[in-house]
Structure formats: structure tokens, C-alpha cells
């Protein structure tokens, strides 16, 4: 038993050596990694479905008026007389407690939700990945400073940080919400990217690339990043949906997107108290959110596969 434990990891490092060396012998091939990835993606059905869904979402967010009859912001758009009515032929999703048409609100809420989700995920991923890459690659003092820094950020409660940032910014909208969540969210990606880099930087192909005279920047971006990005993409794709939902928590605290603005997160959280009496009020926006997350998970999976050098 004990010998297998010590023996286990040795085998991989040997094998990896072979693979790494093979890679390094064909630098031109590695250099065209990103364009290879693009070509791969265009042939991947998972990517195509995901992309179509995301495209639809973007169109709905940009021009919601094309998809509904009325605007939810007009006086009289909501009538308490219709409160909590079930879905019907004219009103596919039914009405919420205020007597507002849920379908209309879902369509008009897309813009804020998609903005918050995409913007936050993008910021968090870019900032977290770059700093994580730096910390993992450089190590030593750079790593120490950046890591201790994230520990402090990790420990700031969302509630406190959110309230503080919002009191500095004043108003609450999709952009400020994204900023709040990005400021408090990047350490997670940072940790994951750093770990991924640590695991990859000692691979022999990296050594080989360095031996061949590749610069630090080139090695990080051409060799380490594509190998290390997979877990980041997975976490980012799920987080996108989580951020859309978390936006509602901030609204509840009075520091998020505020009515009369609409967002899915707000719709879902408003429907909570009456979930057992009127589940449709919660389930329709939740279903749309699910589809959104699914679309991004599909995109993420496809991009990751396309980037993975081991699949070549």
C-alpha cells in the first residue's frame, strides 16, 4: 500500500516529460493555438447551441420592446386586481403579486440581469486570472503580497463591503452592482488560477520552452495559460448565474438594482414569500435564468475543450 502512494506521482512526471517535449518541438503549432481553437469551436454543436442561446439573450436585452406588447413602466401596467393570477393563453407566465405581467417583466428584466452577470464574470475572470497568473508564475514576494491581499479581501463580508462601496457610489444600478460584486469576487478566481499555474509551471514542457529561449510573457500566455484555464472557465460559467441571483440579495439590502428597474434576481426574490401559494411567480424567471446559465456552461465547456492542448 505505502509503496503505491510514493510511486503514484512519479509515473505522471515521467510521462508528462515526453508530452511536454513533443509540444515544445513544434512551436509554430502552439503559436496558432488560439486560431486552432476558433476553428474547432465552429464545428462543435455544443458551442453552436450555446452561442445561439446567448445571441438570443443579447437581442432580448438590447431591444426588449420587440418581444412584448407594452412596457412594464407605464402607469397602469400593473393592477392589483390581477394579483397572482395563473398563466393563461394571453398571459403566458401569469401575474405577480402586484398584478404585473410576468412575461413582460422577464423580457424587460433581461438587460439588467445579463449585464450584471456578464460584466461581473468578465471583470472577475480577467482581474483574478491575470493576478493569479502573476502570483503563480513569479512566486516569492509577489505571490506573498498578492496572496495576503486576497486573504483580507476574502474576509470582508459582502454585506459590509457592499454597503460601503454603495455608500460611496450613491446610486444602485447594474454597473454599480457589478462593481461591488467584482471587487469582492475576484479573490476566488485568483486562488484557482494561482493553483492551476503552480500545478503547470513545473511541467517539463514549460522547462523545455524556457530552454529553447522563450520569453517569460510568451511562456505564460502561450503555454501556461491554455493549460491552466480550464478550472477558471468552469467556475466562471457557474458564477455567472450565481452573480445574477446574488444581485437580488444586494437589492434586498437596498444596494442593488432598484424598482422600477427590473431584474430576474429581483423578480425571484420578490416571489419567495408566496412561493407555496403561487409558485409560477418564481419559477418562470428562475427557468429563464437556468437557460441562461446552461447557455454559458455550454459555451464554457466548448471553449475549454477547444483550448485544451492535450486534445490536439
Amino acid at each position: 500500500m505505502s509503496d503505491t502512494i510514493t510511486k503514484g506521482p512519479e509515473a505522471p512526471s515521467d510521462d508528462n516529460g515526453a508530452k511536454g517535449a513533443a509540444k515544445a518541438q513544434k512551436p509554430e503549432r502552439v503559436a496558432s493555438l488560439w486560431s486552432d481553437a476558433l476553428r474547432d469551436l465552429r464545428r462543435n454543436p455544443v458551442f453552436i447551441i450555446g452561442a445561439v442561446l446567448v445571441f438570443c439573450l443579447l437581442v432580448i436585452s438590447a431591444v426588449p420592446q420587440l418581444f412584448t406588447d407594452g412596457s412594464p413602466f407605464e402607469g397602469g401596467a400593473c393592477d392589483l386586481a390581477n394579483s397572482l393570477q395563473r398563466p393563461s393563453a394571453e398571459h403566458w407566465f401569469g401575474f405577480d403579486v402586484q398584478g404585473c405581467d410576468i412575461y413582460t417583466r422577464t423580457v424587460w428584466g433581461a438587460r439588467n440581469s445579463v449585464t450584471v452577470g456578464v460584466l461581473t464574470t468578465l471583470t472577475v475572470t480577467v482581474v483574478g486570472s491575470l493576478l493569479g497568473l502573476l502570483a503563480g508564475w513569479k512566486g516569492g514576494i509577489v505571490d506573498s503580497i498578492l496572496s495576503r491581499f486576497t486573504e483580507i479581501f476574502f474576509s470582508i463580508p459582502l454585506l459590509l463591503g457592499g454597503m460601503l462601496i454603495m455608500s460611496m457610489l450613491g446610486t444602485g444600478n447594474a454597473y454599480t452592482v457589478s462593481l461591488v460584486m467584482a471587487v469582492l469576487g475576484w479573490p476566488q478566481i485568483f486562488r484557482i488560477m494561482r493553483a492551476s499555474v503552480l500545478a503547470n509551471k513545473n511541467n517539463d514542457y514549460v522547462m523545455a520552452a524556457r530552454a529553447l529561449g522563450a520569453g517569460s510573457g510568451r511562456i505564460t500566455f502561450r503555454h501556461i495559460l491554455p493549460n491552466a484555464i480550464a478550472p477558471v472557465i468552469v467556475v466562471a460559467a457557474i458564477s455567472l448565474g450565481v452573480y445574477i441571483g446574488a444581485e437580488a440579495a444586494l437589492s434586498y439590502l437596498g444596494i442593488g438594482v432598484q424598482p422600477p428597474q427590473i431584474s430576474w434576481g429581483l423578480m425571484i426574490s420578490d416571489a419567495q414569500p408566496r412561493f407555496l401559494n403561487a409558485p409560477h411567480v418564481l419559477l418562470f424567471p428562475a427557468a429563464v435564468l437556468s437557460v441562461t446559465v446552461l447557455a454559458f456552461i455550454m459555451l464554457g465547456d466548448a471553449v475549454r475543450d477547444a483550448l485544451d492542448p492535450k486534445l490536439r
Partner: protein
Amino acid sequence: MGRYVIRRLIQAIPVLIGATLLIYALVHYLPGDPVQALAGEKRADPVVADMIREKYHLNDPFLVQYWNYITGVFQGDLGESLTGRSVSEMIGDAFPYTVNLALVAFVIEAVVGVAAGVMAALRKGKFLDQLVLISTLLVISIPVFVTGFVLQLVLGVKLKNDYGIEIFSVSFNEEDGLRAYLLPAFVLASMSLAYVARLTRTSLMETMRADYVRTAVAKGLKRRRVIGRHALRNALIPIVTFLGADLGGLMGGAVITERIFNIHGIGGLLAQSVYQKQGTIIVGVVTLLVLIYLITTLLVDLLYAVLDPRIRYE
């Protein structure tokens, strides 16, 4: 390795001082009046309010307040809340519940999450893989508040009233022991479960493609052994990273889960003191959190070296 650990522990000192100063400043400059927050919907009597401010030195300049606080901390005194309760006592009351809940939740997310991820990876596109995907979507799109209460109603109340089965406590009850933590821990773990399962799936699928795994298979090693000893071990690094960060988060308390199941842990204490702008409590709790993060990240970093011998700390 030993020197590395000592160096990390020494680094903790400036981080702790920096963090307390930062948090103390954040709370201090947060708008709002803590004395009014205590009075609720009626206006605090101006005379009474001023006496309270005087008593707790809220009128002193920021640095004076911080100095008084930090010198107290070094003498082992975390100060008093604005209602006259000792902060160390309040944290001491709340923290054991949070630790228990966090540990149960952590075990659930680590064991179930990794297991589900491995299954999904091995049977890509099959039923289990789809199930993991669908559960992920559900967990993300339906808020904990709803799942928490539905589970509480169905598994707590209905099971007891209709079938006389009491496996899950409706709300937290100390006498129920571990039973009291099961439902809240599951609810709390559900979101991270989704992350862990999907991370495991991806990471394992990726390592399975690595040449050394193919070699191992070619050498005639059993599949189970290849996965367990070779592939999974290497795939664990991002998962361990995620779990490590998450353990810290869990220890910080879960405001919503704690509220649903009436567990009076750190989450509720922290949320309430943020609302009431009770600096001494916030700083006390956050300092503890910084400490926890320092330790968990250190442990995770050490684990890397165990999982992958090529990673070394000198």
C-alpha cells in the same frame, strides 16, 4: 517546508493588523448612527443617545478609538457591544454552531461533490452527467431561501406530522445533536456542491486525457487504480483550492441558512452588527475570519506539495 510555514505565520502579523485597521476604518466611515440603529423605529432620545455615545467613546477621533481597541485586543479584551455584552462572549457563543455547521457542510460538499463529479466524468453525457448538470442549474436558479423552506416543510414538518418520522430537525435544536445540522448543512453545501462536482468532472476529464494516464492504462493497471491513484490525485488541485477557500467562507457563517434554521451562529451576528454599525463586534468577527483564511490557505498551499511533488516551497 518548516521555514516556509514559519515565514507564512510571521506574515500573518502585518496582515492581521492591517485588516483590523482597514475594517475598523470601513465601519467608522460607514454612514449611519449606531445608537439610532439600536432604538429601532422610534427615535432615540437625544439625551439617552448622547450618554451611550459617551459611554462607548463614539465621540472620540477615529485613531483614538482604534488605539483603545487594539490595545484592548492585545490584553485579550475584544471590547463590549453597545448593549453592554462582552464581544468575546458573543463570538464564543456563536462560533461553535458555525464551526459544526461548516464542518458538516464541508464534508457533504467534498464527499458528494467529488463523487458526483467523478461519476459524471466517467460517464460523460450519460444519465448521471445530465443529473449533475440539471442539479447545478436548479441550485443556481432557485434561491436557498426557497429550497431551504421547502425542505424544512417537507422533510421536517410533513415527515413528522404525517408519518411520525423525525430524522431532520425542523429548526435547530441543540438536543438533536448531529441530526440538527443535517438539513441546514445540506442546504448550505448545495451551491458549492455544484461547483465541486463540475470542477471535478472537468479536471478529471482533462487529466484522463494526459499521456501518463494513457501510459498507466497501457501498462495494464486497473481502471479504478488509474483513476484513484493517478488521474484524480492530479485533478484535485483546483478542487482543493476551491474547497479551501470555501471552508473559510463557511466559517464566516451563512446568514440565510442560519436564519432559515434558526442557528444563532457567526453569520447572523455579523449581519446584525453590520446593520447596527457595531464596530467592535464586526472587527472581532472579521479578525477571526482573516485568521481562518490565513490558516486554510496555508493548509491548501501545503496540500499542493502533497498532491503534486513537483510543487515545492523553499
